[in-house]
């Protein structure tokens, strides 16, 4: 079973983000980058499927030179090789442009299964996997919690709203978008990191793929939400105040 995993590199979670005046993207110097969290789960799922069914796992990442580190991390964990779609202005792509580019790179090979994370921790479009499936003409399923492969078909567990799940069947090949938390991603061992040095990363300039990636949508501006602080003292007996608090947590803060 040959599996491609699309892995995005995103700004590290606690990176102190700076937005240039009127900017549509953050300042990229001065901050760390890491593997997009859902993609880490997708990789782990791919590695487990490979351990069960054989074949190879290929890590695909698009972006500037720095994303090689993310590909190497995937290879250190057990991916067999990497594909780097090189694009220094990657952040300007919209999900359709990204999906078209990834599809073109993926079509150069033959995969039985293509995994993506559900969404990225930076732009959070949640579109790339779905668009990719459409462009490749493959079936897809999203928010995948479990994959069982048997006789060239898959049984898939999907997460629905409000604690509900759904089991469905799908043929192979297919594209799946993986939900975070479905497994415990392994560490890259020090030996794995050294072994990855000998694995191959194929570099494909995005421009060479011949796809039209003119954005169909555009980020106008990104900004930090303005902080407004409002203090409200809830009055009444403890019982009344608690009831009011619950109402507020439910309908205003929407955390309950």
């Amino acid at each position, binding site marked *: 079973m040959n599996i491609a995993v699309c892995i995005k590199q995103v700004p590290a979670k606690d990176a102190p983000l700076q937005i240039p005046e009127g900017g549509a993207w953050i300042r990229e110097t001065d901050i760390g980058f*890491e593997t997009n969290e859902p993609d880490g789960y997708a990789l782990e799922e791919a590695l487990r499927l490979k351990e069960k069914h054989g074949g190879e796992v290929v890590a695909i990442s698009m972006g500037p030179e720095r994303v090689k*580190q993310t590909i190497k*991390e995937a290879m*250190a964990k057990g991916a067999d090789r990497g594909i780097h779609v090189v694009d220094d202005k990657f952040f300007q792509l919209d999900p359709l442009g990204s999906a078209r580019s990834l599809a073109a790179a993926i079509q150069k090979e033959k995969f039985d299964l293509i995994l993506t994370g559900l969404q990225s921790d930076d732009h959070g479009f949640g579109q790339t996997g779905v668009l990719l499936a459409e462009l490749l003409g493959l079936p897809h399923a999203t928010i995948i919690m479990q994959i069982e492969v048997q006789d060239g078909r898959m049984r898939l567990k999907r997460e629905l709203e409000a604690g509900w799940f759904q089991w469905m069947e799908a043929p192979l090949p297919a594209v799946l978008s993986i939900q975070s938390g479905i497994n415990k991603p392994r560490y890259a*061992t*020090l*030996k794995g*990191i050294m072994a*990855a040095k000998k694995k191959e990363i194929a570099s494909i300039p995005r421009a060479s793929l011949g796809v039209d990636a003119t954005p169909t949508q555009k980020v106008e501006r990104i900004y930090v939400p303005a902080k407004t602080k409002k203090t409200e003292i809830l009055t009444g007996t403890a019982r009344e105040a608690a009831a009011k608090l619950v109402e507020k947590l439910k309908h205003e803060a929407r955390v309950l």
Partner: protein
Amino acid sequence: MPAFPGVDFIEFDSLLNDEEKLARQTARQFVDDEVLPIIEKHNREATMPTHLIPLMADLGFFGANLKGYGCAEMSNVAYGLVMQELERGDSGLRSFVSVQSALVMYPIYTFGSDAQKSKWLPLLQSGKAIGCFGLTEPQFGSNPGGMTTRAVKKGDRYILNGEKLWITNGTIADVSVVWAKTEDNDRVRGFLIERGTPGFKAYDIHGKWSLRASVTSGLSMTDCEIPAANLLPESGGLKSPLMCLNQARYGIGWGGLGAAMACYYTALQYAKTRTQFNNKPIASHQLVQDKLAWMITEITKGQLLALQVGRLKDAGRAEHYHVSMLKMNNVWVGLESARKARDILGANGIVDDYCIIRHMNNLESVYTYEGTHDIHKLIIGERITGIPAYA
């Protein structure tokens, strides 16, 4: 507490390659996931978290910069970054890895026979065997050359007599690397003593207020007979144990930064949220900023020192006085950062809800072992003046 983002003020990371960053990431994640949630309990109860040994072995932490025998063959810089992260967790845990790697695997690797290497290195690398390093004696610390432990050859056996004190991992060790004077002109040589050898006893030192999550022991040898084949054949003179110490000190030089980072990061978070006087965060006061600025500046200088010594070591050009400066400076930065962080946390700085007081107490040991702070000054002093000032 959120995942540790690292301390990088001057794009230090741009000086690291991908392997180095990935090795650090693995150790960082390991510390966040496995060490920080349990370490205060172990520190409080004065127990070593032995359950982490197999996991650390799987990740390749033991002997990570050695070649073969299942070792990861990392660069010294990558190895140093792993030590940094481990000591961000706890100096005791880092001590365990330092001893296993630099003070047990390294001497067997460097001075051992093929039989010794093929027997012990795979076991030690995989954490199936634990080792300790016995150099210090009750009467000889900074001056190990004065040691009174002796090894006398009798047929195909050596008979050892003497006392070793302050030995990390002593009672949990399957194999002890013990240094003793021989009849050959008092030449110091290394010996392997296996657990359970008659005449060999190890006991724990209690009442420690430092490195409580690490085992510190005494070793006692009374007519302890070992096969002559347990001599480390290539060891010869005090230079041999000092070569081991040089390996360990190098890792400690990175480790001190890890402890400093933990204290700095904790103090920074605390100072931004703790308010005193007019509901202003204490981070808004100049005296508090002075401390935080001092810490990040010294950490940053320490990173550059560690990296350069690491690069020299990878190029085979690190001298013992380079390593002395690294160990001396960075452990001091750690200790001073812990003290300043303790101050910033006020009363909260003295309880183990926060890591500060544990790091501070731990670093008092680290300041002393592997060559005290002042002994390293003397090593640097000898290098620049040409005049040894030890005696």
